[in-house]
């Protein structure tokens, strides 16, 4: 599945996007974040503050307990500041 990162999440991970295979047992957005945080300091830094990072599954806002099965594209980003 494709992961996308925006704003300071992108800067901290050092990636705008990447292809990953989610690990066995990762069923929700929260599970995926927990796994990402184990991938290195830059991910720990990007996802370290609980409750800040937002997610979207296939371009729709998703809660942390949303299932990721079947998702093609999951995006992570800070709270939005448009307008």
């Amino acid at each position, binding site marked *: 599945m494709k992961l*996308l990162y925006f704003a300071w999440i992108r800067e901290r991970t050092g990636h705008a996007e990447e292809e990953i295979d989610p690990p066995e047992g990762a069923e929700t957005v929260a599970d995926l974040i927990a796994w990402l945080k184990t991938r290195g300091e830059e991910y720990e830094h990007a996802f370290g503050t609980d409750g800040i990072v937002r997610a*979207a599954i296939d*371009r729709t806002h998703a809660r942390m307990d949303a299932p990721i099965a079947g998702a093609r594209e999951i*995006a992570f980003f800070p709270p939005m*500041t*448009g*307008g």
Partner: protein
Amino acid sequence: MPAASPATPLVDVRVQPGPFDLPAESARLSALPDVGAVVTFTGICRSDGGRLEALELEHYPGMAEEEIGRVAGEAAARWPIAGAIAVHRYGRIAAGEDIVLVATASAHRGAAFAAAEFLMDWMKTRAPFWKREIFKDGTVGPWVEARAADDAAADRWRPDTAAE
């Protein structure tokens, strides 16, 4: 809550780097049948007392259009509007330039005012855009943090709390 307009309203959402033409967008809405009110809102990049050179807006291509479209669809379902246009720019936007346009049309002013404010409030908290400040001396500021006041402005439109 008033019933939605029987005719399918015009809903046009665009996300673009360049400027928009406010008079032209307003005229498109005025030309719709049975329109008695057009409300337009323009969000502008503040100079913050002259210290700000520009804003840099990052967005999520695809989702930005879709999410604003969802919000516009909700506005059209909730109020009897004839049309809604939303244009959000991205990239570098100099102080004094327009950032965002919301325009709504209806037979009477109430629905147009309410739908425009709803659209703007929800767009700020749900559309995937992130901004950072570029100062006159060339330095780039940190990412702008979301404001609780913006969440509160959007929350007041929730069905259980909204006073209509």
